């Protein structure tokens, strides 16, 4: 089983490398959306480890993303030029900076996780929400990080290969972890925390581990984002961004990685698709006006989806639980 997944990961990486050569040729706009999809997949799949598989409710994923984005940008801005200008060395600096950003985010995940993961449900949601705001507040006051102005000047390093390679690695790690004997602990914590504890599972340890891992990948996603947009601003990592990611997880189905990947893809494409519809001149005026308020349409679609598929697009978590209860 594990062997097969390793082969899958390797072939996915190879496909990424192959596609990367083709991806440079497409329109910059589609490329922007494509990279957005990759980054959102990393964010949603990693958050799914906390919200879906471990059953905790974190609302601060954008905060970890911010830590990764700022840490990696700071690293490339500071050391980017000092090492050399060859492609190999800039790529090395970039990947190291990404990992540095990820580690920074993981560390902050640990700092937040240890004291706050004793809390449950709504309380944990509030703490993580607070953390998100604190990170934003710190950056807004940190002069070396551009404070309220935002930070710019990063070079364009993020490409198709790195984005989707990290997306593949995220999926691989999360799937394998949850599928392993050790990883069953996450599901046990989700299904019944008291029972899990009675069975001798260190629930706090599992929760912190899920939290730290998710934060690490969010940090990587932040670094990719920063080196793609080449300008980051504290407002880009606000509470609403966190909610966006949570929506992807819920829509995909809590604890269903395939569903979350599809949801992240759909929710990245959908707003841009609606943007396109608003410009179709052969549409009647009133329809164009409806499409112009695309975010209302977008929300409406979300509501309809949630009403018709409360378990998420692919999710069967609640379904399974109901079956078990019966």
């Amino acid at each position, binding site marked *: 089983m594990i062997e097969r997944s390793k082969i899958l990961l390797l072939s996915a990486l190879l496909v990424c490398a192959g596609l990367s050569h083709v991806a440079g040729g497409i*329109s*910059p*706009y*589609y*490329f*922007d*959306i494509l990279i*957005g999809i990759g980054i959102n997949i990393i964010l949603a799949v990693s958050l799914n480890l906390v919200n879906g598989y471990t059953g905790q409710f974190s609302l601060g994923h954008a905060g970890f993303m911010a830590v990764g984005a700022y840490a990696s940008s700071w690293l490339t801005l500071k050391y980017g030029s000092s090492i050399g200008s060859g492609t190999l060395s800039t790529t090395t600096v970039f990947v190291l900076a990404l990992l540095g950003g990820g580690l920074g985010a993981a560390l902050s995940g640990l700092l937040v996780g240890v004291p706050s993961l004793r809390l449950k449900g709504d309380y944990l949601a509030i703490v993580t929400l607070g953390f998100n705001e604190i990170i934003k507040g710190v950056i*807004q*006051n940190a002069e070396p990080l551009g*404070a*309220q*102005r*935002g930070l*710019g000047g990063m070079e364009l390093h993020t490409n198709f290969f790195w984005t989707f390679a990290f997306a593949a690695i995220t999926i691989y790690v999360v799937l394998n972890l949850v599928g392993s004997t050790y990883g069953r602990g996450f599901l046990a914590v989700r299904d019944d925390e008291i029972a899990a504890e009675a069975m001798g599972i260190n629930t706090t340890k599992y929760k912190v581990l899920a939290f730290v891992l998710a934060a690490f990948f969010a940090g990587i996603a932040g670094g990719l*984002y920063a080196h793609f*947009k*080449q*300008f*980051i*601003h504290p*407002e*880009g990592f606000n509470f*609403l*961004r966190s909610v966006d990611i949570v929506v992807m997880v819920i829509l995909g189905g809590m604890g269903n990685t395939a569903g979350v990947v599809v949801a992240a893809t759909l929710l990245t494409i959908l707003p*841009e698709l609606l*943007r396109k519809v608003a*410009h179709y*001149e*052969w549409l009647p005026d009133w329809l164009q006006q409806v499409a*112009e308020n*695309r*975010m209302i349409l977008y929300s409406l679609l979300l509501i309809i989806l949630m009403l018709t598929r409360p378990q998420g697009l692919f999710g069967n978590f609640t379904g399974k639980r109901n079956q078990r209860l019966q």
Partner: protein
Amino acid sequence: MKRPLIFSLALTLLASAVLAQDEIKIGEFASLTGGSASFGQSSHKGTQLAFDEINAAGGVLGKKLKLITEDDQSQAGQPATIVRKLIAQDKVVAVLGEVASSRSLEAAPICQQSKIPMISPASTNQKVTEIGDYIFRVCFIDPFQGSVMAKFAQSKGWKKVAVLTDVKSDYSIGLAQAFKEALLKGGGTVVKESSYSTGDKDFKAQLTSIKAAKPEAIFLPGYYGEVSLIGKQARLLGIKVPLLGGDGWVGDSLLKVAGNSLDGSFFSCHFSADDKSEAVQGFVKKYKAKYNNETPDDMAALGYDSVMILAAAIKKAGTTESEKLRDAIAATKAHAGITGSITLDEKRNATKPAVILGIGGGGFQFVQTVAP
């Protein structure tokens, strides 16, 4: 029934494809929804008005101008995507936007890399045009307002001035610095410097110490939210001297919160609908006719000016080729805009007059225009 529908669809598609060649496409990204929607809506309305006017007069270079507007929801991360779309998909020849400096800063590198000229109507932060030689603006930059208000204080004979700065805002710090420099140069003195942070509600401590220094005026370069509270509390403490500020004072809630406590105060601004000059009154009339009798604000006027400067540059360049268009925009001199005579300097910033407004009788009154 079905076939004619498909047929007519195909026809309209064909027609639009043919028509497209007689159009010059210009992109706009604006915050039509979200946190700063009121700014984005205003500038978009001014922009649209300018397009209608130009097209009614026959367009530019014999072609109609086509405005393609995208909403960035006031969200960081959106402008980059949108500008990529405008440039790559819609193939616009120039980009207009944004009001907020942080969002202009995100879009500017992409315009610069694609060599598409970008004109920001109202981003006042200095860094925006420093991104590169394809980035322009039609508004003045932060420090200018500070020096304008210092000159105004001098002309009123106020020599001893206190300064109260919002330390959390680049805008406020920039204005305060320029004000102090210009004031000292003109022989005035800063008798007291105090600070607060965005979101503060109680300013009595700072105001008490300012009162003790006995200033003849107080320079208060903040945003309307705090300014209205400071004005109220200053009067409660018996401070009767005038307060001076910048365009951050403009906001619906300024007078609603402050009541009449800001009467006798002055601030600098881009534009006043009360200005009796012919250009301004003509613009106000057209704007009111198009938008349900709404009075245009400074964002609308700046949006309008940005289009007019672009159109004039296209006309002068005789082409929409990016390099020639850039040079034509950069050569803009003494363009008679709604917000005054605009000249772009070598740093691609607008040199232009500011308008000073006074507060009294529950509204803003036009006082004077200060040349740069």
